[in-house]
């Protein structure tokens, strides 16, 4: 609660008035305006750090950043002495907003549609702006997530959202940001329970996988044909009018390589398979998961396939893997020149710990600067929104985090938070419960 007190004391009544209703269930989002953060260390991420500089925010955008920037008249100012400004953190591999309570409350879970092929399932439809997870996550400095569906073979379309808004469309940065495909796994269902399972018959497994891959392939080919048919009719209305198809239609930009396709794949064979399949189908692949990416680094680099690493805090896949195999995975990819970013891969509760995932990678070989990039600029680049997000540069969306120290250190506090140029109150369901009970 010190955060709130500090906010009110430091910012004074001007900001406090602007911030408005300090509850986590906001019916009105805080208004944009003109803000100046002065005398702060500015970690631009895309360029050198500015040891003592100013960031100007106007109408949602970063208007200016630098050591000698003048504060415009009428700007609400924040004294950033002793503080650091970072771009908001981005977690590009979550289900945040689609799940409230995963066990025992099925009604709050909206991740997996029935059936294997659901390209028309759109995460942006089901994201709950009023989920407790949203505020709990953003008060730790995570401003943006890729929220993805999970089920079947073609899970649906992920959405890139800011963690502020009273309706999904207010949150959406890219409403339909990527198609999500679960690349068929070799060696059984994998992640489930069951302890000791005899290995499946190899030829049967491969046949089953090939059949599943063929299902995906057929649907993508159908979508290509569908797109061509619709285009042809658009140009020549004398042709027979093709029926619209709600399942195939959303696939068209993906099969044409205009939008990225995320393949969930952790093991070496699946990553290689996904790259091969994407090449065959002329898709723009991104690997999500990537536990074995370090084993496939040269191929990933050669094909320029980026990886969203979700397994930094997973146990090594094999008993005889080195204990730090997954802690080191990001550093190894960085060394090999593979594009990557770091994600929690979580459905909600753990997304707020994103900085620690990057910090652990830095403890095991990744430079501190690259660790910060791995949760800011790199995910923005991979999701093709680096023109708007991921660094502190003039013209970018004002998603900014003001801290009292190193962004990745656990003890560091978030002092101010801007999302889309709006000053966000640092309260959540958790700060409210803390306030309610700390003096009971």
């Amino acid at each position, binding site marked *: 609660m010190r955060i709130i007190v500090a906010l009110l004391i430091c910012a004074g009544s001007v900001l406090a008035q602007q911030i408005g209703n300090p509850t986590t269930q906001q019916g009105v989002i805080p208004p944009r305006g003109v803000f100046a953060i002065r005398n702060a260390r500015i970690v631009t991420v895309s360029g050198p750090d500015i040891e003592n500089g100013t960031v100007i925010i106007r109408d949602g955008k970063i208007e200016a950043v630098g050591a000698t920037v003048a504060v415009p008249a009428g700007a609400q100012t924040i004294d950033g002495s002793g503080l650091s400004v970072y771009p908001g953190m981005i977690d590009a591999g979550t289900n945040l907003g689609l799940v409230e309570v995963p066990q*025992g409350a099925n009604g709050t879970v909206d991740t997996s549609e029935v059936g294997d092929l659901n390209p028309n399932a759109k995460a942006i439809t089901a994201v709950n702006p009023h989920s407790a997870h949203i505020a709990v996550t953003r008060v730790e400095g995570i401003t943006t997530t890729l929220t993805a569906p999970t089920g079947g073979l073609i899970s649906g379309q992920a959405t890139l959202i800011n963690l502020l808004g009273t309706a999904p469309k207010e949150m959406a940065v890219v409403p339909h940001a990527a198609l999500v495909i679960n690349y068929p796994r070799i060696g059984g269902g994998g992640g489930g329970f069951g302890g000791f399972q005899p290995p499946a018959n190899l030829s049967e497994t491969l046949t089953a996988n090939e059949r599943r891959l063929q299902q995906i392939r057929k649907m993508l080919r159908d979508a290509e044909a569908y797109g061509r048919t619709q285009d042809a009719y658009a140009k020549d209305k004398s042709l027979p009018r093709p029926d619209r198809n709600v399942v195939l239609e959303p696939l068209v930009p993906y099969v044409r390589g205009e939008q990225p396709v995320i393949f969930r794949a952790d093991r070496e064979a699946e990553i290689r398979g996904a790259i091969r399949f994407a090449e065959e189908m002329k898709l723009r692949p991104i690997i999500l998961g990537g536990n074995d990416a370090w084993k496939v680094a040269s191929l990933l680099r050669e094909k320029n396939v980026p990886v969203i690493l979700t397994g930094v*805090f997973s146990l090594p896949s094999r008993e005889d893997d080195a204990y730090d195999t997954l802690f080191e995975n990001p550093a190894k990819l960085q060394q090999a020149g593979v594009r990557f970013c770091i994600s929690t891969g979580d459905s909600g509760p753990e997304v707020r710990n994103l900085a620690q995932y990057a910090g652990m990678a830095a*403890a095991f070989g990744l430079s501190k600067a690259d660790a910060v990039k791995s949760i800011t600029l790199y995910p923005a680049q991979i999701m093709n929104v680096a023109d708007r997000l991921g660094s502190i540069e003039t013209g970018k969306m004002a998603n900014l985090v003001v801290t009292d120290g190193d962004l990745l250190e656990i003890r560091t506090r978030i002092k101010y938070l801007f999302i889309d140029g709006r000053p966000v109150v640092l309260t959540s369901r958790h700060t409210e419960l803390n306030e309610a009970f700390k003096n009971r």
Partner: protein
Amino acid sequence: MKRFIARLVLFTIAGTLPASAVRAQRQTSPETLIRNATVLTVTRGTLQNTDVLLRNGKIAGVGKNLNASANARIIDGTGKYVMPGIIDAHSHSMLDTINEGTLAVTSMVRTEDVLNPTDADLYRELAGGVTTLNLLHGSANPIGGLNTVVKIKYGRPASEFLFPGAMPGIKFALGENVKRSSSPTQAGVPRRYPNTRMGVEEVIRDAFTRARDYKRTWDEYRAATKNDKDVMPPRRDLQLEPLVEILEGKRYVHAHCYIASEILMLINLADEFGFKIKTFQHVLEGYKVAKEIAAHGAGASIFADSWGYKIEAYDAIPYNAAIMTRAGVVVSMNSDSDERARRLNIEAAKAMHWGDLTEEQALKLVTINPAIQLGIQERVGSIEVGKDADVAIWNGHPFSVYSRVDTTFVDGEVFFDREQDIARRPELAKERARLEQAEPNKPPAEGQSPLGPRRRRPTEEMEIERP
């Protein structure tokens, strides 16, 4: 089937490799002097530029310019941090099975009977500076099985893991898991009692009522034998014996719980029967009833910030540790997860981020506090002369996310050393390649070979999901 067995052999061999390697490279010097380090004693503050001497398995000295024997191993601790070995008060590592879920009261079963000393996660935990684990039965029953406290002596037989003199304990559990809330009802199979938190209380009350009578029977028998040597002894009851030990204060109760009402229920029930709850485990709503927990004298062993994974965890907040600590509760941070156990230093630091505990208070969460909760605080949990030489050397402050462990000692012996670990990787890679080339292990003519069997031990929380 032949291939399957061969693969099993491969994996078994691969799994034990690190253990044998550790054994081979373990230093034989009985004495180690760590020089000029920052020493986080936990109970006596943080000492700069200080030496720590480990001799005969004990901490033999803490101070400036200590002398060591001629054959002592000298480690330059400049820029390094020495911390007591981390104690994880809620673990299921090295347990081949966790839940005896068939009955509501399974106090007759013992985790000590299912220890697997080759569990690779033990080594990974050593690499996170962890040296002691409280191995708990699962949470399938209001009264579960007996616990085992171990030191992580990876590479040794299970019998050498046992922590000598640790207080015996038992797992209790309340709430959703024992109600089997998440288990599907199967046609024709009656649900196991209890089905509600009301029933949970009655199961425990019934068990302690029987235990009290059982104790009386034995007390009467013992009194009678003073006069008459020919009295028939009562029949032993292995289910009730541990409960009698609880009533006599000889066995600690570690009670899994989540919500405020069930915490209060167990406190009241324990008061009624005149015993103490040693720790509430998870106790995610402990912050709502912190003063009642403190008044009972119970400890709390919690997650740093897990929340929301089920209904009874929805009100969990990361300020829990701080609120309970300020109320006077002895709080520890546990893992309940082989994964999280590797980074309990980070989990402890979270209590500074959320709730403003001091560094010293936060350090205690994974050292002396869990030691108190397990009755081993005279042996471990701080860096003091005479205590067991269970310490880890970190390359930076253990509360920094950028730090990692260089070396972990248990009873003065090295059980993890990062340099040695890295040095033997090429040799292990060669060995793996050789095994893969062995005829039975060759992949089939085409395609990838499927993964061999790998034991996936679900966490306690996950296991309960199974019918």
